[in-house]
């Protein structure tokens, strides 16, 4: 799996991980925090409290506080009593961490998954993106910024479908 999540330390850690890994992205509910690679580490401390480490997709991502809230709720209902959610920036999140399964889930949901590997393209040029509905490569970009920080707006020139593209970063 491309997600570089840490190797879990114990059965209890695993139980806590299982309780939070299915927390969905509030903006893209087909993806979980595990699919996204936002969930980095789950550790149950000696005093029974749980430390969860997450990383933002974009620095200003407003979903982060929602993630923290949902993670806490999931752990409390799994029987844990205290939860600390910690945010780290390193290593920087990249769409390269999205698994094949996650990419397919996005496509079925109607969002074009990120294209290949993250690149360093500062000026000019346009990415070729396939339409998630009809798979045509004849698409055009409407805007590099979409309904959330992680998406861009595209249109299919063949089936006319407007769609979101999960930006490659």
């Amino acid at each position, binding site marked *: 799996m491309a997600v570089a999540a840490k190797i879990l330390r114990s059965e209890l850690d695993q139980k806590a991980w299982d309780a939070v890994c299915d927390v969905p992205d509030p903006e893209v509910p087909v993806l979980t925090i595990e699919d996204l690679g936002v969930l980095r580490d789950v550790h149950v401390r000696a005093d029974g409290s749980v430390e969860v480490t997450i990383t933002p997709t974009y*620095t200003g*991502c407003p979903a982060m506080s929602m993630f923290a809230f949902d993670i806490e709720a999931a752990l409390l209902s799994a029987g844990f009593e205290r939860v600390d959610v910690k945010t*780290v920036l390193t290593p920087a999140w990249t769409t390269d961490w999205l698994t094949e399964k996650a990419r397919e889930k996005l496509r079925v949901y109607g969002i074009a998954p990120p294209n290949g590997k993250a690149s360093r*393209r500062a*000026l*000019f040029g346009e990415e070729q993106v396939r339409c998630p509905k009809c798979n045509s490569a004849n698409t055009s970009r409407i805007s*590099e*910024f979409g*309904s959330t920080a992680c998406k861009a707006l595209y249109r299919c020139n063949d089936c006319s479908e407007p769609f979101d593209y999960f*930006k490659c970063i």
Partner: protein
Amino acid sequence: MTDTALFTYCMRLADDSAILSQRLGEWCGHASHLEEDIALTNIALDLIGHARELYTYAGQIEGKGRDEDALCFHRVEREFNNLLLVEQPNDDFAYAIMRQFLFSAFMHPFWEAMMNSKDEQLAGLAAKAEKEATYHLRHSAEWVIRLGDGTEESHNRINNALEFLWMYTGEMFECDEVVSSLVAKEVAIDPMSIKHLWDETVNTVLVRANLERPTESWMQTGGRKGEHSEHLGHILSPMQYLQRSFPQAQW
């Protein structure tokens, strides 16, 4: 000295991001079309993210218990150390685009270089900010070209913006004791070390946009010392209103 310098350095960067994001936020509901409205506020959101990280880190360095809100909303105009460029008004769309372009053309190589900083916090933020700045630069550069190479009206407007804002670009390359002491420790970036990259981007885009690079002349300065244009107070007033009226209010 180092901690004071690092605090000041982080506060400058935080103020740049916070003030520019507030300026961009003014476009919400007012941009030329829906997609552009979303684009400008997306950029604003990234900048808020950078500002929050930097204010929080600065507060930790200072060690006096000031958090991101205290640092952003409970300081007066003279205590803000942002570049004069970022506080310049949204007189028209061309000004907003040119301001963004001149700033992003600097910030993109800046964050790229900062990824090698010996300060782990700054290097970590840089690795994220560099990716975001890539989009900000590309978006604003494309607009500069579209407007410059567009109609006579759009060309004139973006040219006016360029000529007006040019005198605020010198400040980005200033290197005082705060910066040089941190450059010596390989924490900060010597702005002159990325000047050639800024020049290259600016020249390439201006040529494509049929715009002439203004001749080098006197540059405005003062932002890093808290000496601002009249505009900053008018930005802070609505920005700080809620926290001033209800200190410690939580979202």
